[in-house]
């Protein structure tokens, strides 16, 4: 029932000069919920619309299963699509909206009514069947959009930032609804989900492709994307990471990384590193402990109280940190913090060496031995 999507060397250009997607190859496995994650303008929506067929390809091929579909018109691809602004037909009732795709497929009336009723129950909208969309809330409209896309039993479900117009609470609720329905329907519909919200991507996906400037940076499970980012773009885009200039020190076969005067044992550093090699080290904002000496010194610039956490904007001494637009930040849990620091105070931190990631000097490649899926 569900199918695999294969993209081979897909190219997209807008006018002659701007290339949105230079060369993208990707396999999305059958039945999985696959997320395209990236900053706005990275080409993720463009790629989704190419899967749907709204944009023609300027190179490469796309297959749904064995069938090559990049030359098939949209309305013959058997896709279900959920749009950012829901795109509910405003002149049709809930039931009529959901029924629309079935009518196109010439499903007879009795079966149509049965299917509409079923799917509306699934999305808990059965009592609104005869309402017009103008009288429904954003969340309800999004449920209709989801029902409308799924009721036709599509080969592929495409979702373009479906939750970005909802408020925070509803977003979290809809997140699990989507995931539930996606897994239940037809034994799991192969789903491609576009978002720029990293938390949403981590929460909802089976696998994530992080995209920047039309190029895939990493394809992995949410956990591995977070724990073992493939390069510093991923490290800084997903969660907050502080970046340091470091040097590899290998003594007696023991792999260490030196940041400033601080030597840190990094056990999972790969085998292809050399003693003295310049590297970039990334540390998540909360992966450290405060020590009295022997660590890295920094100065508190400002603090922000966030309830559960205390965020400090800091400045590291001796220019050991890589300069970025975002600056540097440390996060301490309010529950476990012994005391709060004041602006201007100097503190010494010791990074949690097990959780560090090490990249080549240009930040382009991870030097970690990332092992297999865990």
């Amino acid at each position, binding site marked *: 029932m569900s199918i695999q999507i294969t993209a081979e060397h897909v190219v997209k250009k807008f006018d002659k000069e701007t290339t949105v997607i230079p060369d993208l190859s990707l396999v999305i496995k059958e039945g999985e919920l696959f997320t395209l994650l990236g900053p706005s303008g990275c080409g993720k929506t463009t790629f989704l619309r190419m899967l*749907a067929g*709204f944009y023609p390809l300027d190179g490469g091929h796309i297959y749904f299963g064995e069938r090559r579909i990049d*030359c098939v*018109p*949209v*309305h013959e*691809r*058997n896709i279900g699509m959920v*749009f950012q602004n829901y795109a509910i037909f405003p002149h049709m009732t809930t039931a009529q909206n959901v029924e629309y795709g079935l009518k196109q497929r010439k499903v007879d009336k009795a079966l149509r009514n049965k299917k509409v009723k079923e799917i509306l129950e699934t999305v808990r909208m059965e009592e609104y069947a005869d309402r017009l969309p103008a009288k429904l809330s954003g969340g309800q409209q999004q449920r209709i959009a989801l029902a409308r*896309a799924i009721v036709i039993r599509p080969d592929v479900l495409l979702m373009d930032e479906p939750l970005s117009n909802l408020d925070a609470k509803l977003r979290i609720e809809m997140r699990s609804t989507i995931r539930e329905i996606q897994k239940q329907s037809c034994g799991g519909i192969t789903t491609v989900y576009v978002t720029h919200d990293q938390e949403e991507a981590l929460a909802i996906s089976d696998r994530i492709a992080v995209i920047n400037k039309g190029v895939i940076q990493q394809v992995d499970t949410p956990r591995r994307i977070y724990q073992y980012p493939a390069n510093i773009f991923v490290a800084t885009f997903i969660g907050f990471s502080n970046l340091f200039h470091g040097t590899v020190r290998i003594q007696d076969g023991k792999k260490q990384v030196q940041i400033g005067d601080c030597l840190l044992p990094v056990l999972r550093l790969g085998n292809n590193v050399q003693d003295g090699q310049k590297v970039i080290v990334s540390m998540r904002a909360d992966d450290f402990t405060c020590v009295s000496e022997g660590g890295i010194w920094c100065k508190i610039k400002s603090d922000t109280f966030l309830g559960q956490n205390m965020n400090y904007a800091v400045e590291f001494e001796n220019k050991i940190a890589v300069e970025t637009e975002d600056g540097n930040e440390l996060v301490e849990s309010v529950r476990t913090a012994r005391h709060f620091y004041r602006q201007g105070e100097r503190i010494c931190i010791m990074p949690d060496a097990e959780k560090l990631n090490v990249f080549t000097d240009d930040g382009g490649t991870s030097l970690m031995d990332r092992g297999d899926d865990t």
Partner: protein
Amino acid sequence: MQKIRKLDFWTLITVIMVAVFGIFLIYPLFSLFSSALRESSSGMFTLDHFVKFMSRSYYMRALLNSLKIGLAVTVLCMLIGVPMAYIMTFYRIRGKKLIEILIVISMLSPPFIGAYSWILLLGRSGAVTKLFAAIGLQSPTIYGMGGIIFVMTLKLYPFMYMYMCGALKKVDGSLLEASSSLGCRPGRQIWRMVIPLVMPTMLAGALMVMMNAMADFGTPQLIGEGVQTMTTLIYKEYIGEVSGNGNFAAALASVMALVTAALFLAQRHYISRKSYTTNGARPVESKELSSGKKAVAYIFIGLLVFLSCVPHLVVVYTSLYKSDSSMYRSSFTLENYKKVFSSLSKPIVNTYIYGVIAIVIIIGLSMMVAYTSMRRRNIFTRIIDTITMFPYILPGAVLGITLLVAFNHGPLTLIGTPYIIILAFVIRRMPYTLRSSSAILYQINPSIEDASISLGCPPIRTFFKITARLMLPGVFSGAILSWVTVINELSASMLLYTGKTATMSVTVYSQILRTNYGSASALSVILTVSTILSLLLFFKLTGSTEVSV
């Protein structure tokens, strides 16, 4: 495959539209200019017509008069329309809705009814004139330049008012609050904040007024009395009993077309440099006026609305009273209506038949032009979008001459047929529907179409099932405006009609010339009632009294 198939349908539509507008708009304009540059008898190239126009003060005076009238009317309309819009928008005025309905009706009523009614009141044997004479006073005359300006101002200030209301409603209230918080006094705020913000709209309104004033044919023809304007001159030169000179009339029409085009481009140029978009605006809350100012405001607005309605009242009154020639005694009668329905039913039928045909064509074309120019953008669709708006600024008399010159010979001889009248209606009045079609399409998110296609509905069927269906309310509201202005069209039909194809407005005009004031009034009332009913439908459909003209 998909790309090609999509192209097929809309390319076909684009090609058809290019052909249609090429034949019925571009070619006629081309013929107009080429005819203006030709010797009347030999057909050789010549600049004589333009030289003749420039060298004789008789002709130049007509152009000057047109410009003079245009400027004076524009200034007066601004002096009336701007303060009125300001008061109506920013202060609480009772009966706002009724006032606006009356204003819109007077704006869209037959163009010559004003002049005609004022003749009945202030003309040589007018009611007011006689009243004044009876007590030994001389009433102000309605004839001549002053009269033209007076009548046109009353007819055209609503344009200014409607434009300004639209703009003032969009002024963001928080901008004014911001300026107050920074220490700007309320009086100065009007000059420092409000006026600059609505300036582009004010100019657009001023241009509308000026073009309408210069394009008006009925008013100067009826009460000009020796004051010749470009439109009356064009008519006279073409129809002229002594020497019907088509080529010279074409030259005059070309001059007129160039003048209006220049005005239009100048205004566009200014607006493109100074246009402010305020989005997500919170409208200014209307305030209560102090009682002294309130009295002044109500008198000002009341007087204006009364003067605007006078022509309609006069026409209704005249139509219901027995009249021998222009003298009427006070005896109620339906004689005039009986006469109209027995001997002048043909123009009524013509108006409705031509009008309905024109509207059907207008709706079809507008939807296709709007759709292709917005959703299938390419060089051709953009050109079509631009040229279809051109008739918006083309004076009716110029369009009349243009069509006459283009279709008076050859395989497409349309002169004397109903087709040429319908053609004039379509070309002249399509912009209203086109604009409202584009406006509503702009509000329809393309992803709704995408959704339909993704659910398995092919693009063309999606257009008819979803897009067209969602466009309908906007298209209809525009079509009603087109309809109202179609049935009231005079200045182009004036040149194009024959006995058999006369419409109501043309017939009213000829009845006035024959001083058959009774049947002229009765016909006018029928026309006005049609207009009012259509407008009421429009108000109901759009749920507001706002009309974008």
